């Protein structure tokens, strides 16, 4: 046996057991649980990859025995494989945990459908991961895809699915509905990552980049400082982009959900809400942009009668003058205020333009909401899932916004009506009814998806029937 071959054989055997386990694990999970399409696609890829790796490992050892001078190449390939598998390893278990009983499936389906309606994202899919962290997060995927392409050169049996994104939900929020609307923000990160790295670049992303570098280069002359400033402003840009993107797809329900989450995380104190840090803009700045966008899209007018704390909070934050915003590099070190000003004056207008360019008009959504809101609220008031009939079924965005408005304003009334006076002050009962409301909303979305699928099928059948006839 040539020098080094035994080592290679040992390494290959260890790797073989490793990928064998991963492949079997994915198969086992798919057998025992139901997953959304994107997760199924991801598991299929992993299964094909692991089968391909096992085959290639056998071939490589054969090749090495015949051509000992190939040993260094084979070793390099093995290293690439190990690194890539380490990346995949962190995705597989959280994806396996996120089956349809632990995530809000209808909401994720809806978000995926809306995502595919965004310019340049037509075939995108989102894999949901459950994380032990109490946060929503989009796993950056560009690096994973680069490594996948590298691996494909010597394991050609599996191709990484194009435009596949990974979004983490906190496991505790898995089946809940209202807080999980935050997933739209993370989808914004996915869109940003996909479209900002296009070649040739998207014109509005070029404009956004120019606005950032142009405004900052006037303030910071030192190259290193400028690079750091650009990095920080890019972080803020993404956050505002994602918020506005989510609002365009979802309307005010997203803002209300974000208020709930930030409040749960304790980020809405008066001191923290005006503080920019290197990764996030101040909550007050974010909410000011929410209110701007909601006003421009006529949503604020449509929900002007809502008298909830969340809406008041949103408006109060939006009213905070920008002079009170401050920027801290860490807990104690203050950063240059000029960075915040440049961001507000030059970059935010470019973000708004980009979001408008990418997302569909929201006028129809607002009008539809106005038309169906009363009917939806009437159903919820009597403890009924919003009704889906053949004609005039409410659309999912109207459903979500109406249900959220109802949750913020009318839930105590329903509790009192069914449970008796004073029951709305009982935390257990309140929580139980919140859960019910979420289930009914989710059921209505699921029903609307079933109706939608049926309508599409009916159109196809009638079209092919007419074609046959003619």
């Amino acid at each position, binding site marked *: 046996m040539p020098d080094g071959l035994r080592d290679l054989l040992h390494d290959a055997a260890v790797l073989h057991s490793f990928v064998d386990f991963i492949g079997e694990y994915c198969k086992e999970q798919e057998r025992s649980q139901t997953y959304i399409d994107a997760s199924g696609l991801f598991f299929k890829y992993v299964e094909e990859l692991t089968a391909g790796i096992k085959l290639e490992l056998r071939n490589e050892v054969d090749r090495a025995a015949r051509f000992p001078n190939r040993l260094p190449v084979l070793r390099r390939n093995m290293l690439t494989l190990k690194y890539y598998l380490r990346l995949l390893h962190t995705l597989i278990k959280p994806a396996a945990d996120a089956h349809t009983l632990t995530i809000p499936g209808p909401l994720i389906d809806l978000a995926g459908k809306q995502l595919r309606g965004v310019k340049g994202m037509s075939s995108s899919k989102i894999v949901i991961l459950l994380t032990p962290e109490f946060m929503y997060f989009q796993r950056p995927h560009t690096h994973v895809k680069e490594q996948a392409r590298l691996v494909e050169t010597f394991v050609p049996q599996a191709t990484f699915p194009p435009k596949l994104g990974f979004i983490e939900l906190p496991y505790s929020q898995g089946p809940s509905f209202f807080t999980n609307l935050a997933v739209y923000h993370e989808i914004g990160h996915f869109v940003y990552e996909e479209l900002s790295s296009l070649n040739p670049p998207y014109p509005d992303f070029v404009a956004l980049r120019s606005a950032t570098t142009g405004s900052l280069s006037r303030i910071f002359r030192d190259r290193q400082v400028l690079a750091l400033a650009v990095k920080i402003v890019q972080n803020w840009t993404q956050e505002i982009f994602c918020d506005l993107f989510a609002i365009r797809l979802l309307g005010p329900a997203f803002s209300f959900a974000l208020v709930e989450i930030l409040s749960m995380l304790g980020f809405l104190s008066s001191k923290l809400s005006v503080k920019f840090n290197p990764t996030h803009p101040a909550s007050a700045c974010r909410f000011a942009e929410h209110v701007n966008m909601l006003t421009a899209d006529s949503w604020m007018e449509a929900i002007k009668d809502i008298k909830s704390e969340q809406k008041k909070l949103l408006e109060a934050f939006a009213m905070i003058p920008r002079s009170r915003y401050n920027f801290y590099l860490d807990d104690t070190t203050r950063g240059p205020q000029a960075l915040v000003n440049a961001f507000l004056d030059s970059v935010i207008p470019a973000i708004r333009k980009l979001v408008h360019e990418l997302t569909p008009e929201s006028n129809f959504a607002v009008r539809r909401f106005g038309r169906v809101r009363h009917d939806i609220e009437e*159903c919820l008031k*009597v403890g*009924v899932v919003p*009704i*889906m009939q053949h004609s005039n079924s409410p659309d999912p965005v109207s459903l979500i916004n109406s249900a959220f408005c109802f949750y913020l304003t009318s839930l105590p009334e329903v509790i009192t009506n*069914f449970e008796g006076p004073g029951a709305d002050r009982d935390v257990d009962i309140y929580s139980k009814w919140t859960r019910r409301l979420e*289930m009914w909303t989710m059921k209505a979305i699921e029903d609307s998806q079933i109706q939608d699928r049926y309508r599409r099928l009916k159109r196809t059948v009638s079209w092919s029937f007419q074609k046959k006839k003619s």
Partner: protein
Amino acid sequence: MVLSKKEILRRMQLAVSDDSNLVITPLIYANENDIFDSDSVDLRLGCHFLLPKTLDQPFFSPDRSSATSLHVRVHVPLGQFLVVPAHQTILGATLEFIRLPSDVSGQILTKSSVARTFIVVETAPWIHPQYRGCLTLEIANVSNTPVLLYPGRLICQLILMRIAPMQPDSNNPDSQSNGDSTTTKPDKNYFGPVYPEAPKFEDPQDDLLRIGVTGVSGFKRIKRYPTKKGWRESKPEP
């Protein structure tokens, strides 16, 4: 009096705030006759199921812990199927969410074509006025062959009956009069479910105490713990 198709459709057109309104949603059909008969409406099987779990006890005791101890939840999306083994039972639910009017009771029956495969859909078929929710179906395969169930297919039929008018009950503060009938408020335990629901019981001691029975014999749950040689029962408490 059994409600006719015309009456069912009429009540479905009423506003939801009206006590006489009937809700069945979503109704999916190409043709009304696909799901309506002259005196009934067919309902579809939903996508969620509760399958019996292997218990850690040698028996099942209907008590407080039963809701979580007896079943394991399963989701079968439209387009896939669930196998019900021979002589096995599962809990499913209708795809449709229903709300009965205050003057109407309902009954669920297995669709005759389904019944002829020896799938029995309901053993507690009565639905009280004002019930709302997806109906939990106790599905039993009483045949000698495993049978496939496809969510979304028609599985049972709902028959609706108008209840005779009564006078308001002065002794029951929960009772409400809606003109010609008296109704009680809907059951809060099973209010508005959208998935099959596990049974909810009080502990037998509490239940029987209400009728004056004390000293109800209980049983000790067997606690098992792992040892080097396998699982062992814990020592009985003194």
